[in-house]
């Protein structure tokens, strides 16, 4: 999550110092990837909304303790991941594949796609989404952190609280499983 103009740490410090625009910039940069991480992790929009807002609440509450040398994006995802784990422990995952099916059913295929290829592209995306959701939680988390948030293995390990080799192993298994499901 490199910043072309001001780095995340600088924005965080500026906001803590009273600069409202700094938080708005920080939020704009990270809200999309964070939200998609939560959506794919908890597989339910309502839960994702709740955890999304809670994540930012914790960021706001912890602003004084934030160290500028820490990666803001990794720290943000760490908070979100811990909240997701707490949610998993409290309740079973909601909707699962059925909600994904509903989402894809509600989407129209892009008009630019040729009729003879429309099913192929749309189906590919659908299979990818279903494959992600079918992964075990730890593998899914590792996969999404890699694909959506573009984290290194080291950062994935930091977010998920495991060693680097464990993170790598989970990611490899996730990728292999997804390739297998998409190719079916």
């Amino acid at each position, binding site marked *: *999550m*490199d910043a072309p103009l001001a780095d995340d740490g600088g924005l965080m410090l500026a*906001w*803590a*110092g*009273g*600069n*409202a625009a700094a*938080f*708005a910039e920080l*939020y704009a*940069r*990270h*809200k*999309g*990837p964070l*939200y*998609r991480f939560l*959506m794919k992790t908890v597989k339910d*929009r309502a839960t*994702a*909304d709740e955890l*999304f*807002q809670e994540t*930012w*609440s914790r960021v*706001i*509450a912890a*602003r004084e303790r934030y160290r500028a040398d820490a990666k803001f*994006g990794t720290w943000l995802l760490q908070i979100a991941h811990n909240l997701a784990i707490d949610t998993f422990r409290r309740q079973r995952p909601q909707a699962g594949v059925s909600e994904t099916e509903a*989402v894809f059913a509600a*989407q129209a295929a892009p008009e630019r796609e040729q009729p003879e290829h429309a099913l192929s*592209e749309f189906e*590919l*995306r659908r299979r*990818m*989404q279903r494959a992600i959701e079918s992964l075990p939680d730890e593998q899914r988390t590792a996969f999404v952190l*890699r*694909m*959506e*948030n*573009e*984290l*290194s*293995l*080291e*950062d994935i390990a930091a977010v998920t609280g495991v060693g680097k080799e464990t993170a*790598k192993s989970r*990611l*490899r298994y996730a*990728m*292999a499983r*997804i*390739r297998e499901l*998409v190719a079916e």
Partner: protein
Amino acid sequence: MNPSTPPPGDDDLPEDRELAALYARLPKDEPDPALDAAVLAQAMRAVPQRRRPRWPVALASAAVLVLAVGVGWELRDSRPDSKDIPVAIHERMAAPAPAPEPATAPSASPAAPAPVQAPLLAPGVADADVTRTETYAPAKPIERASKKLRPAAAPQALRSAPTPDLAPDDRVGEIRRLLGRGERAEALRRLHELRARYPHYDIPQDLRDLEP
């Protein structure tokens, strides 16, 4: 986050690029605007916003004031000073034509080096009925340079020495000083030269009315 740059320093995972390309085609979920607003509002409430410092505004205002005073002072200095020093017109009429003026700034003192220093007119004198010699103009009442001027140039005045290469604004200042000293013919010659040299220059209204 840069979607096109792979994370640095990782072991190669062969499936990365192909899966990443497929993943990138998935729908991009975004939080609702209401959610955005809620988060932003919470952040704003949490941190007291500092007010913008006012000193740049004060500094800019002071700078504008200083500039305005300076410009006003410059304009004041560039006008012919015709109020304070009484003078005898016949002394001015008897003086030879002034030598070409050196290239000076418009704010220079009217006391420029010349064979005969021409004193300035007093307000009362402007209304007096004065006569001119043949060197300058037909006998007509002399008025202030800032008011309506009547054409009175003599042909000989046009064959005076060429004006030094002054900027148009400086030339205007010189012309006004000449008019203030009653050297109308020279002023008209200089005005003619200004028009010829800078045809697109916007001549001030008081000089525009000064017809040969």
